[in-house]
C-alpha cells in the first residue's frame, strides 16, 4: 500500500504514514495526508507502522494533523507501530492529546470507533425505517 493511500475499515479511515527519506518526499506526503484528512469521514486512524524512525518533521506533522482534526471536531487515533515510536509519542506529549495504539486491529476495537459504527448502523436503520 502506498504511503498516504486511504483505506476504509468500517466507520474509520486509515491513513498509512511512512518515514520519508527526502524533504521533497516528506512535503508531498504531508500535503497528501492533510488533504485526505481534511475531507475524510471521522474518525481517522493515522498508522505509523511503516515509520521506523520518526523525525522532528514527523512530530510537527502530527501536531498539524491534530490541529486540523480539532478544528473539524474529528476524532483522530494513532497507531504507533513500534515501541520506539510509542516512547517518542509519549515524550512529545502527543499521546496525551490523542489515543495511541500498538496496532490497527487494536485501534479499530476502541470504543471511539465502535461507537461510530453503532451510530452508522443507527443512521442506516433510520434511513431504512423512513423508506418503509
Amino acid at each position, binding site marked *: 500500500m502506498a504511503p498516504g493511500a486511504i483505506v476504509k475499515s468500517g466507520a474509520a479511515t486509515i491513513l498509512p504514514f511512512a518515514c520519508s527519506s527526502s524533504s521533497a518526499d516528506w512535503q508531498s506526503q504531508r500535503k497528501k495526508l492533510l488533504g485526505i484528512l481534511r475531507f475524510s469521514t471521522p474518525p481517522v486512524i493515522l498508522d505509523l507502522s511503516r515509520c521506523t524512525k520518526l523525525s*522532528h518533521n514527523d512530530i510537527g506533522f502530527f501536531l498539524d494533523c491534530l490541529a486540523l482534526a480539532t478544528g473539524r471536531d474529528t476524532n483522530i487515533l494513532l497507531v504507533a507501530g513500534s515501541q*520506539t515510536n510509542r*516512547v517518542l509519542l509519549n*515524550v512529545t506529549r502527543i499521546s496525551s492529546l490523542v489515543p495511541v495504539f500498538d496496532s490497527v486491529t487494536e485501534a479499530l476495537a476502541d470504543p471511539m470507533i465502535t461507537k461510530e459504527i453503532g451510530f452508522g448502523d443507527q443512521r442506516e436503520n433510520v434511513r431504512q425505517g423512513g423508506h418503509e
Partner: protein
Amino acid sequence: MELAAVVVVPSKEDLTAMEMGQTSHAAVSEDSQPLCSSRTPILGNDVLRSWMEPIRKLGVRSLWLTSRPRERSMAMDLAQFARQGVERFLMISLKSYAEMDLADLLRFHRDSQNSITEAKDARGNLGVSLLDRLAVPAVDPIYDSGVSPHSEQAPYEFGGYAKRILSAKERQELVGDALTGACAMRPSGARIREQVWIGEGASLADSARVVGPTYIGARTIVCAGATIGPFTSVERDCVVDCGTAVEQSTVLPDTYLAPGLLIRQALLDGRHLEDLRSGIVTDLQPLGLGCRTNQPPHKTSDESATEASSRHTSVGAAPFSARQPWLQVQL
C-alpha cells in the same frame, strides 16, 4: 601484606556483554551499549567511593583500580601482586552498590576455608569475592563468563541492601531509595526542603517546580515552567528547558532536554533515552529533543564516544590505558 583490595571497573566490552545478558525482555534497542557506566554518578555520588570506607575498615590503606581489557589476563597481574606478598585478594567488580560488611565476608571466608568466596544475594552474584593467592588462576574465568570453577564452594549469602547499578531499572530503584532514606546512600548536595537536594551552583527558574523526593545536581539549570520530580535525579551540568516535566527518572550528567517534553520512568544520557518500562533505548537527537550540553552539533559520534568514555572513567588520576591498566588509590 595479607589482603589487597582490587576494584575492577567493567570495561566497555564487559558492559555490552552484561547488558546483552540482562536483556530478558524482547526489547529492541537502537544502541546495545548500556547508557550508564559504573562510574556514572548516582545522586552526585561515585559508587566507587561507597566501597572505599568498608575497605578502609578492613585495615587496607590503598586499593588497586583496573579496567581490564578482555584480552588481558587478570590472573597474570594478580600473580605479580602475590609474588609481592599478597595472601588474599578482595575483588570488587564495580557493577553493584551493596551495603556489605566486608569484615563479615572476610570472617565467613576464613571460617568456611574456601579458596574463593563469592558474595551473592537472592538475584545472584554481586561481583564481590575473596580469593586466596592459590586460587588466582581461577580469576579469569570468573570475570570472563561469571562462572567460577570453584562453584562448589559455599557462597556468602548477602541479605542486606544491594542494587545492580548497570541495570537502568535497579539504578532508578536505588535513586528512589536514597532519596527516601531507604538505604544508606544520601544525595550529594544541600537539602533545601523535605526530600529535595540541590547541588552546588544549580539554578532553578522562579516558575520551575521541584516535587520531592528529588535531586538536582551541581551546575544544572532548570528553566521556566519545568517540573522536576517526584523520584527524580537530574545529575550535574544538565539543562532542562522550559516546560519540560521529568518524573521518576534519572538524567545523567551533561544532558540537554528540549522544551515541552514529558519524561516519565526513563534514564537519559545525552541524546539517548531508555524507557524503564519497556527497556527500549531511543535516540532523541534526530528529533531535536535531547543532546549533550557540551556537544556542538558538528561533532562526530567518534569524538563524542571518546568524550563519554573519559567522562565516565576519570578518577581524579590519570585514566586507564593499555600501558597503565592499574591505578593505586589511597584510602
